[in-house]
């Protein structure tokens, strides 16, 4: 069985490129000329991130020696342990700025919600590919899959980490779609998000979007009940969004949601970050202001510049060229991973790689979308770039698993 085994070095180079950009940006955001006003725990961010990266490099290569089957077989155990840790975190976690999502293990704090992403992806993939003919077409299978994602999502809500939770909801439709959920229903699954988004922008856009999606669903799957459901869904989402915005939410909450489209609604509150983020990126121009020269960054006009708003640092200091390079690196990574999935024979491996790709992609879209005011601000990190040890390690582990599966694609047989 053993043939020429190829390790995907291109992915490693992209990975190195991304975390190098990340380290540079973190350094600039925390060690700049005016870092004197920053508290020490932030000043240490660069060193800590470098340490985590060093650890992650070891982990990445270490994982290559594990048998690919282990991931499949251990998936439920990881998932179970993960859930237990999540529950423990809810009660005994360390509370940081309102959310209780950190668990202290010895000298280090671990963000369990991040690690849980890996376990959830593996568990879902394992479940959906455990037997032949298990397909998301089957309602029961689909519901179990939804449950696998929903349980950690609910626990995250309990930890007050809705931002991270959204990622779970983001990759669920992709997982189901890949596993055989009919196209029409897949589109239906993501339609509430799209219709809701456009309704917030403008209710007329929301209506147009709902109609377009209904037509798409009709052509994908000529089922009357599905088309009607889509239409009803769309209408409900539009009405729900409008009622929520204008009746239920307090003006300041509404402003928080709407400011990404119109920051001047609340220029000093929720709109502040939107304005400052756009200003940071926009003022970078083509070449950027230079390393450690970005005034928006160095003068602290944005909170969390080393995590949620790190794209602004890159955009401001390295300009369109730097930010564009970052986007290209991501696109290359995603396309490379998708190619890996397509060329793999094993459905478990395919599903894991697809899930990981879209896990990154959802982070990518939400983070950069927030920073560029295409989306409401949702505080989640940019994979491999943002400061955050747990997230970096988890993302690296997932990447390592993908590399492992790809590396062993010939020996990792469908047949036992």
């Amino acid at each position, binding site marked *: 069985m053993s043939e020429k085994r190829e390790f995907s070095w291109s992915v490693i180079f992209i990975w190195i490129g991304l975390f190098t950009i990340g380290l540079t940006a973190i350094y600039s955001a925390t060690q700049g000329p005016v870092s004197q006003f920053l508290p020490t725990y932030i000043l240490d961010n660069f060193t800590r991130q470098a340490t985590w990266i060093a650890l992650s490099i070891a982990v990445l290569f270490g994982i290559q020696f594990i048998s690919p089957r282990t991931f499949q077989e251990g998936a439920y155990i990881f998932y179970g342990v993960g859930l237990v840790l999540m529950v423990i975190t809810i009660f005994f976690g360390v509370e940081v700025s309102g959310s209780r999502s950190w668990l202290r293990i010895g000298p280090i704090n671990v963000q369990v919600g991040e690690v849980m992403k890996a376990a959830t992806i593996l568990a879902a993939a394992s479940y959906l590919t455990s037997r032949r003919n298990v397909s998301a077409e089957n309602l029961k299978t689909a519901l179990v899959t939804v449950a696998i994602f929903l349980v950690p999502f609910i626990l995250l809500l309990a930890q007050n980490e809705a931002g991270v939770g959204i990622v779970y909801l983001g990759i669920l439709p992709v997982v189901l779609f890949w596993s055989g959920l009919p196209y029409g229903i897949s589109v239906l699954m993501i339609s509430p998000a799209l219709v809701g988004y456009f309704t917030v922008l403008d209710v007329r856009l929301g209506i147009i979007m709902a109609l377009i999606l209904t037509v798409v669903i009709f052509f994908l799957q000529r089922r009357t009940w599905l088309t009607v459901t889509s239409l009803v869904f769309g209408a409900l989402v539009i009405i729900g969004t409008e009622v929520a915005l204008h009746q239920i939410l307090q003006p300041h909450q509404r402003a928080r949601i709407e400011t990404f489209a119109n920051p001047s609604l609340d220029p000093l509150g929720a709109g502040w970050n939107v304005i400052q983020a756009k*200003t940071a990126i926009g003022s970078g121009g083509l070449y950027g202001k230079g390393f450690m020269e970005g005034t928006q960054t*160095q003068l602290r006009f944005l909170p969390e510049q080393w995590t949620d708003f790190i794209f602004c640092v890159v955009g401001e200091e390295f300009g369109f060229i730097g930010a564009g390079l970052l986007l290209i690196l991501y696109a290359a990574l995603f*396309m490379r991973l998708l190619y890996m999935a397509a060329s793999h024979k094993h459905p478990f491996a395919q599903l894991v790689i697809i899930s990981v*790709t879209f896990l990154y992609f959802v982070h990518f879209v939400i983070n950069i979308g927030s920073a560029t005011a295409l989306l409401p601000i949702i505080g989640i990190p940019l994979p491999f770039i943002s400061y955050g040890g747990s997230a970096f390690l988890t993302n690296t582990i997932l990447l390592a698993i993908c590399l492992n599966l790809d590396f062993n694609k010939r020996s990792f047989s469908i047949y036992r």
Partner: protein
Amino acid sequence: MATQNNTDKVRTSIKVLQAIILIGFFVMLVRIFQLQILDYETYSPISMQNSLRMEVLQPARGLILDRNGTILVENQPIYSITITPARFPMDKLPLLSKILEIDEEIVEQRIRAAQAYSWHRSSRLFAEVPFEVFSAIQENSWQLPGIGHQLESKRHYPTDVLGPHIFGYLREASLEEYRADDRIRLGDRIGKSGLERTYENYLRGEIGTQYVRVNAFGQSLGAYEGAGLNVTPVRGSDLITSLDAETQALAEKLMDGKRGGLVAMDPQTGGIITMVSAPLFDPRKLAGRMDISYWRDLNTDSTTPLYNRAISSRQPPGSTFKPFMGLVGVEMGLVTNQTQIYNPGFYLRGRRYNDLADPGYYDLELAIAKSSNTYFFWIMDRIASRGRLNEWARLINDFGMGPLNNIDLPSERSGIIPDSTYMNSTFGERRWGIGDLMSLGIGQGMVSASPLQMAVATSTLANGGYKVQPHVVTGIRNGSGEVQYTRPVLEKITWLRDEDVEAVQKGMLRVIPEGGARWRSMIPGIDIAGKTGTSQNPHGENHGWFIAYAPKDDPQIAIAILTENTGFGSQSAAPIASLIIEQYLTGEVKRQHVIDYVLYEFPGQRATSIHQISEQ
């Protein structure tokens, strides 16, 4: 087949997923292209403004100096706290109030006022906080976004001279003043009275601006040396006055606790040597952070300390009017300087007007020396009987009584020299007669003047017939040290003849040695030409007047003084005037007993005084 189907499905699904990712990638790419390339011109300036903050550099206010270059008014540093309301989160109010040691309610009130002015520009939250509070604010500035601090200055009076009515005081500009002048920022203190007000535009200087790099918390990160953005402040010009510090200090001490006004000036130039209005007030309590209760007291005090009696009060000049009356009588052809008029002890015209001077014949010189009423009633009788009132009024006006003399101080008031128009408007057309005019001849009744007007009139006698324009400031010295001097304005009173003026001067020289003032107002070696007066006051004790100039051959000082409710001028006003003349001409006062008399035995002396207050 199943596998083939499966492979096809995988291919399609992969294509869908690839499409999604490429769409995501291109959306982001287009978005950053839009922000960074297309909208660069929009965002670049915003980021510049974000990181730079304009700070106002207050110029040093000009100094006020006396004639010898002694600094009378200077500046002292005070520390102020500023706020940019847009940056300040109201939940930090308790912390701010704690650091400032000021009630939350008051702090909040001040913040609202600042908001009303501008959300985005910094304005003064509190002026003159103690240094400890200032440094506490500095230390905590990282947790007080929008709160800044500023080093400013307040007026300081380094000598014994307080001169509240000369210098005036500063107060925060009102909203109207701020709107009327774009050089004034809200919260700026501007001159509200005295020289501070008249010369506000010179003293103020020009504010400078400094651009400072700041972070989002508003913390200053050092000066920004950008191209030509910073403007150095231009310090205010200094005022060089004709005041004499030591004489002024003495005058304030002597007038303290009394009521009245005093003006001494150089009869050759019109420069004010000394000016006091009593009761005085303490300008130190109005400098910097104003003592509110003191301010309220000043405004409600029945003796009206804020009122400048020296240039604003109107009192009948009494017998000090006689020298001018005599000269006008000569000019109107009613008498000559030789004419003798018999005084039987009274003058009869409709009723009996008493004359306290000894009976006998009086010429102009003697009438002034002995202050005979009859001589002047006689003249007034003829003026009134022949309908020459307006001619009389015009001639009196020439001495500087009546119309404004345009001194460089605010709130000067004109005197009253009644003419027919005035009488008509007071009594009604043809409802006044000779009886109403007789008392004008001896400076009583309707005629009234301020000490300033009497001092200007006295100067005309001292300098041989020139009306001078009174002024406090003789030169304005700009920041680079160039002085622009004001030229004295003298106007010859053409109708005055030297021999007539000499007769009057001779009479005035005899007033002190031969009258009731001789005990306390004679200065060994200096001949003072003076005239006492008592202003009849229907509401209480009469007011004392004294006008004088000295030395007789080369007059260097002309003085007019009014002391309210102190009876005869010879016993009240004259001793004070003599002390001021002695101090000014000799540089010291040898007659300590006269000072003691003025300070402790003076009629109507008030126990409380500014010096006692300031020593507390």
